[in-house]
């Protein structure tokens, strides 16, 4: 197992007063919003409050989960995270269809749980017990957060493609194309769209951006090269979960829009 020394004395423990000082920066942003009449001060305030409340809550939950140390509690927490992520993935898309929530949850679940299992049993290997929340919960969070983007972008783009290409798809079907041949252009575009953010992130990581997890480890006192090794692994896991999630969600949606009689059920799009 790759050792990451987390020694309490190596990092500055934050007090709530220090957190409040950081919140002062949000106030500055709010003042800017008022001065420039951006009308964003209310949403900035709500977002800031949500950040504090949500992160504090997860802090409490994680503390409890770490203390209880039972596999079913960890699995339950991750199942809840998966359901929430599946729901969130569909909130941002404009073209909804019946059953999209289930497709989102299945795609997110299959992709992230498979990659997490691979990470725990194949990559990290020494996670003992296998459900150890210190590893599984943060890994799952990162996988879900990124797969969510891929699923959301992929399904959203597919809906737009199907509307824009409806005549093309029907013309192809009329010419004798199979449902797969008729849909493949739209499916490819949707999958590419879902994969673009993670591919772009991998292109510039370390050059333009320092990932949050790596920064967190370094701030907590880890050796930079150890943090880097972890980050590389994480990037690959995230890329795999995003790819799997995007492909799965787009294919599940495809099955809903194209039946085995090679008909395009365009009316399913709302």
């Amino acid at each position, binding site marked *: 197992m790759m050792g990451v020394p987390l020694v309490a004395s190596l990092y500055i423990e934050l007090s709530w007063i220090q957190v409040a000082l950081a919140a002062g920066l949000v106030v500055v942003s709010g003042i800017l919003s008022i001065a420039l009449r951006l009308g964003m001060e209310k949403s900035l305030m709500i977002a800031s409050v949500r950040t504090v409340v949500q992160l504090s809550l997860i802090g409490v939950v994680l503390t409890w989960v770490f203390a209880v140390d039972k596999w079913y509690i960890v699995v339950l927490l991750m199942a809840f995270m998966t359901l929430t992520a599946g729901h969130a993935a569909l909130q941002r898309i404009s073209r909804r269809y019946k059953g999209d929530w289930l497709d989102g949850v299945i795609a997110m679940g299959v992709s992230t749980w498979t990659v997490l299992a691979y990470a725990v049993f194949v990559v990290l290997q020494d996670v003992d017990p296998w459900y150890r929340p210190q590893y599984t919960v943060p890994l799952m969070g990162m996988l879900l957060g990124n797969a969510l983007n891929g699923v959301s972008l992929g399904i959203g783009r597919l809906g737009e493609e199907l509307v824009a290409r409806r005549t093309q798809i029907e013309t192809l*079907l*009329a*010419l004798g194309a199979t449902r797969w*041949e008729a849909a493949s252009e739209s499916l490819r575009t949707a999958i590419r769209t879902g994969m673009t953010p993670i591919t772009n992130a991998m292109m510039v990581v370390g050059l333009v951006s320092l990932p949050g997890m790596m920064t967190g480890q370094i701030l907590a006192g880890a050796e930079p090269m150890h943090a880097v090794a972890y980050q590389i692994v994480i990037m690959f896991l995230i890329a795999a979960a995003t790819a799997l999630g995007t492909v799965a969600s787009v294919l599940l949606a495809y099955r809903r829009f194209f039946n*085995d*009689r090679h008909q395009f*059920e365009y009316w399913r799009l709302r």
Partner: protein
Amino acid sequence: MHDNSPILEAKNLCRTVAERRLLDDVSLSLLVGRPLAIVGSTGSGKSLLVRSLVMLEPIDSGEITFGGKCVRPSHVPEFRRNVFYLHQKPAIWEGTVEENLERPFELAIHRGRNYDVDRAKSLLDQIGRPTSFLTQRAEDLSGGESQITALIRALLLNPTVLLLDEPTAALDADSTLAVERLVFEWFRGQADSRSFIWISHSPEQVRRLDCEVVKMDQGRVAT
């Protein structure tokens, strides 16, 4: 195939959407050599009927047979190779007219068959279009030229039945006559094994088609 055998047949087709009966027990037989014209007001179910005939639309109940046999789901692409549906505004892809004509041959169902440039030129010749039409860019085509391109694209695949869904509704007089001529020539070329259904709103066109007329009204075949 015998003259009196239905090449394409719909038996008791029904389709209801949001409690509205769009197709109400519709039966129809298309015989080889005996084309049909379908007329009826907007929303009477004409388009839905021909789209259902080519299985682009689902049906709640009923049966569609081709050559006396029920079309199984796995045979739908094969069926559509023989029964071609021409949309009022069919898709034309970016590129030249010729690239559009070649496109169907990339599909698995047409693999092994080749694009016949001489046949394409001959079809163009039938409607007095020069060979240079093939190199024209798709984005520069008028509505009429697009429809002619789509029809030639279909005819190059040698279908047995054409289902024409108001193919000339948005076209000028010249393009309308060109489309009619292409269909008539194709049909007369092998009238003993081919047939077509033409949806039309124009009484003059129906007269020119000179075939049996079926009237649709509120999802039913009006008697």
